[in-house]
């Protein structure tokens, strides 16, 4: 594997480089992440895994194009180095390996990150405003996401989940006035950002990028499952929503309202409830056998409980 990496990275960087032994950080079911140092650069190589990708996500080449566009737009992302069509038999892309924490529980609870947590609401708003300003023409392959797609995904699972149905019904009935669609990150939350003691270092995991209402992207970081054990802090377990929304409105000139955030927070919970079921299906169908994926099917009940709670609040 080292030889293949050395050849691929030398070609990419345009010079012969000596590399460290590549270390597999995460053997994600759809994508591998390799840490490798080459010619003095700290690199992260995302390489396709054996199995087919989840069909509602971007291809590796598309995800790379999104990271490039974000980088050009000044978003804090790892510096993109290039796409490799064949790295030891599979496609891959190469980016900078950022230093910091990505594990949600650590970001939410670690003592040394208290200062960072204070800054994150404003910093998250600033990066999101830049993401939403990426010209959509730059990424013509991005799909438009609609509520109907969530329904399709739920139908593919073919299990009765009336709590999710009730959430979808409420979302159909109470749709706020539509805002023009913008480039959405699609999975913008604690757990997908790199944080160091100074604050936000970079935004990762772009495979769910799509075109959508900007508030949908904002509200995904409010979903309770991403508060990592600190549910009273509505913004990802790290802080209050108000400074986040204020800064976002200031930068974009929009006037995002609390009831819109409530709406899209519920939508985020419905999407994640369906997400847990589709992840479990990857195991059950035999595509990616994994006890971690399997158990997600049972944890959908936690998300469904939150959906009921939000519906109760909305009807109160």
């Amino acid at each position, binding site marked *: 594997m080292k030889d293949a990496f050395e050849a691929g990275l030398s070609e990419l960087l345009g010079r012969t480089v000596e590399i460290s032994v590549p270390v597999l950080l995460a053997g994600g079911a759809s994508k591998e992440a390799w840490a490798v140092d080459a010619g003095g650069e700290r690199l992260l190589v995302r390489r396709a895994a054996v199995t087919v990708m989840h069909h509602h996500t971007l291809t590796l080449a598309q995800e790379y194009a999104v990271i490039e566009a974000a980088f050009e737009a000044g978003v804090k992302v790892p510096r993109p180095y290039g796409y490799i069509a064949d790295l030891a038999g599979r496609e891959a892309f190469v980016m900078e390996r950022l230093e910091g924490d990505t594990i949600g529980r650590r970001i939410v609870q670690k003592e040394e990150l208290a200062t960072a947590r204070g800054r994150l609401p404003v910093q998250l708003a600033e990066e999101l405003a830049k993401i939403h300003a990426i010209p959509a023409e730059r990424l013509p392959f991005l799909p438009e996401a609609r509520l109907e797609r969530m329904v399709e995904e739920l139908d593919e699972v073919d299990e009765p989940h*009336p709590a999710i149905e009730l959430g979808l019904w409420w979302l159909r009935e109470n749709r706020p006035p539509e805002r023009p669609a913008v480039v959405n990150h699609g999975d913008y939350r604690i757990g997908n950002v790199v944080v160091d003691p100074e604050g936000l270092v970079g935004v990762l995991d772009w495979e769910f990028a799509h075109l959508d209402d900007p508030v949908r992207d904002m509200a995904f970081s409010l979903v309770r499952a991403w508060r990592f054990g600190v549910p009273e802090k509505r913004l990802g377990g790290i802080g209050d929503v108000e400074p986040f929304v204020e800064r976002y409105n200031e930068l974009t000139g929009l006037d995002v309202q609390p009831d819109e955030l409530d709406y899209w927070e519920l939508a985020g919970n419905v999407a994640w409830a369906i997400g847990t079921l589709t992840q479990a299906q990857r195991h059950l169908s035999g595509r990616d056998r994994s*006890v971690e994926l399997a158990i997600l099917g049972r944890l959908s009940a*936690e998300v469904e409980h939150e959906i009921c709670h939000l519906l109760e609040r909305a009807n109160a």
Partner: protein
Amino acid sequence: MSERPTAQELTEAILEFLGGEILPTLTDPRLRFRMLVAMNALGIVYRELAELPVEDDSELRELARRIRADDVPPDALRRVQASVEARLRIASPQFLERYH
């Protein structure tokens, strides 16, 4: 309640994990032996669960179908909450206790 993965499917996933990922890393012969015994025991549970009758989910299916068709029963939220709580008492009792 028709929960997926079923108890049997979960048992199967654990067996695969133990046999495929943990067992090969065990070098202590005593631990290896005890792991094999534990996997045997889990195999018994797996086969015993296969004997259980499949639970009837027709009521949940009917409720889900009605909500999808915009024919939402007035007590839909209450019924849904009761069923979700019953599932949580099995899948994640701590989540339910700590929820506020």
